[in-house]
């Protein structure tokens, strides 16, 4: 992890994986680096630190003889190119197998499916852990995990099993999640958590039959979102698990905010069959058990996360705000499942308030905890929500063409304002570099 060092031109954005800690340095030391160099030299001369410690500090702060190191964006480029290349090769082979499935001997099929997957894992392992090419190795490991998923669907397809089946995604998730941790791969974690989120939402959708059960599903998805986020928080408390935290936090935040957004519309609460408000729902025993377990595990994870929190120890807002928001999402999960009131206005107001709270909560918590991705999620949904409300407001008031033009201008203005605000926020709170450095890196 890269520590935040205020005032540094080379400070990093936020919690990054260990593999991303290389920083881009300018060949000319900054004023701060020159100051640090002189101080360290004084400490060394006064005997406070040894020569080795002095060198270690200089190396850590990248002060001294300018060395050429690859920037974080260059590293990402390696990861993106390697992953794309590896996935393209795997896709080509899998498409070939799928297209010629009927005409291929059984042994050839098995060899291509299982042999290809195993070879991808083995090459990935060799490059990542033995030969010293961690990024390319991780990309090929990622391909192995994709290959496994493709194999699950290909085998299902070859036996004419319905492939529009969320269980296959959950099996894929179960297969690749342990790999993410063993290979210490953020990209495989992103894939595993993404598959889980899509798979569980899809599975939940298959349970829907009628408006009432849709709310049961959305209630359980709120609880799943809270669970994902709390698992992410737990990961942050262990140094060796921090690199896996991001995907859980972002998936949880996206799921919760997405659900809250869906529930801000009047129409959602009307029973389309009778055009009346949906009634209070009595929860079945199995639903109560499932929701109870999800909630209990989430609360337990939150308690452990708060107890083991070493950040913001003296700041109750920093310490309790995040668990508080997650607890609120749990409460809304139960609220959504039961629909205890008889007023559409009340539901719509409640979910609009929740959406606003989650959007600003994401931005504020992103700032407090230095998570740029969380800030971006908040900003994206802010713009989506703003656009939606604009369309709702103007659809009956303005001529369509005028509404589009005014809306477009407003969006451009909001986009410009948001970008400015985002830059200012990130710079003000030391989460990213200033504009000039970003531009340099982009180039």
């Amino acid at each position, binding site marked *: 992890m890269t520590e935040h060092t205020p005032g540094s031109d080379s400070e990093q954005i936020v919690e990054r994986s260990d593999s991303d800690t290389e920083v881009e340095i300018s060949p000319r030391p900054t004023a701060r680096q020159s100051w640090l160099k002189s101080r360290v030299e004084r400490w060394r001369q006064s005997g406070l630190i040894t020569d080795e410690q002095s060198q270690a500090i200089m190396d850590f702060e990248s002060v001294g003889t300018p060395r050429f190191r690859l920037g974080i964006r260059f590293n990402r480029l390696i990861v993106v190119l390697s992953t794309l290349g590896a996935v393209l090769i795997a896709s080509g082979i899998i498409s070939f197998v799928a297209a010629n499935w009927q005409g291929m001997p059984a042994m050839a099929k098995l060899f291509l499916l299982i042999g290809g997957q195993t070879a991808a894992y083995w090459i990935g392992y060799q490059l990542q852990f033995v030969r010293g090419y961690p990024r390319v190795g991780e990309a090929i490991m990622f391909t192995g995990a994709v290959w496994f998923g493709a194999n*699950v669907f290909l085998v299902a397809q070859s036996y004419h099993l319905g492939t529009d089946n969320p269980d296959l995604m959950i099996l894929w998730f179960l297969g690749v999640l342990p790999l993410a941790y063993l290979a210490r791969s953020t990209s495989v974690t992103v894939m595993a958590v993404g598959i889980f989120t899509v798979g569980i939402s899809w599975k939940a959708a298959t349970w829907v039959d009628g408006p009432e059960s849709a709310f049961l599903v959305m209630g359980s998805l709120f609880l799943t979102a809270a669970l994902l986020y709390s698992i992410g928080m737990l990961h942050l408390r262990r140094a060796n698990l921090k690199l896996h935290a991001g995907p859980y936090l972002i998936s949880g935040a996206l799921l919760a905010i997405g659900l809250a957004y869906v529930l801000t519309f009047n129409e959602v609460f009307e029973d389309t069959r009778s055009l009346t408000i949906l009634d209070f729902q009595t929860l079945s025993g199995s639903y109560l058990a499932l929701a109870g377990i999800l909630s209990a595990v989430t609360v337990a994870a939150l308690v452990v996360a708060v107890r083991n929190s070493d950040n913001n120890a003296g700041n109750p807002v920093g310490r309790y705000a995040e668990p508080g928001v997650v607890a609120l999402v749990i409460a809304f999960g139960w609220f959504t499942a039961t629909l205890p009131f008889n007023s559409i206005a009340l539901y719509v107001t409640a979910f609009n308030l929740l959406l606003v709270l989650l959007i600003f909560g994401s931005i504020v918590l992103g700032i407090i905890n230095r998570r740029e991705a969380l800030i971006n999620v908040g900003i994206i949904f802010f713009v989506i929500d703003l656009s939606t409300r604009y369309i709702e407001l103007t659809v009956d008031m303005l001529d369509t063409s005028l509404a589009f033009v005014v809306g477009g201008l407003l969006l451009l203005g909001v986009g410009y304002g948001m970008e400015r605000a985002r830059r200012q926020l990130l710079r003000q709170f030391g989460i990213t570099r200033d504009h000039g450095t970003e531009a340099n890196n982009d180039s």
Partner: protein
Amino acid sequence: MTPNAKRLFIAVIAVQIVFLLGLVGYRESILSLGRTAVLETVPVDPRDLFKGEYVTLRYEISTIGEGSLAPLKNQYFLEGEINEGDTVYVNLTNIDSDVYRLFVQADKPSPYADLYIKGRATQMRNGTVTIEYGIEQYFLPEGRGKEIETADDVKVRVSINRSGTAAIKELIVDGTVWRP
């Protein structure tokens, strides 16, 4: 990677392979050891852009009740309380004869059924139950969908194991076995 992590890594890959081989083995065992039955079907929705070419098969026994595809001469009986999501067993004894009785039994197969297929009740409306058996898609080689789509008569020979799980063995198109 530590030696322990390396061992676990190998174990996870081994589990993935065993899972895939197990899936292949299970389906092969149904096809080779199961009993066969021929089901009437209507192919609908012939292709999908993302999953390759396939036909969706709606069987005579997919909808049992008033909205059924089954001719009225056939009788159906719903036995036990059937709710959406329930596992059901449909008795296929005498399904090859002209007139037959369809017993749809909840929870467990009838002890008197000679041949039954397991499915899941996906919809229950006005005495009509819609059932999925996991054999509703048939994947085809690229460009062959039209042959099935334009056929007058499509039947499916399925293989069914002792627990009622079915697997598609082959299509019978206009009276002859269709070769992919």
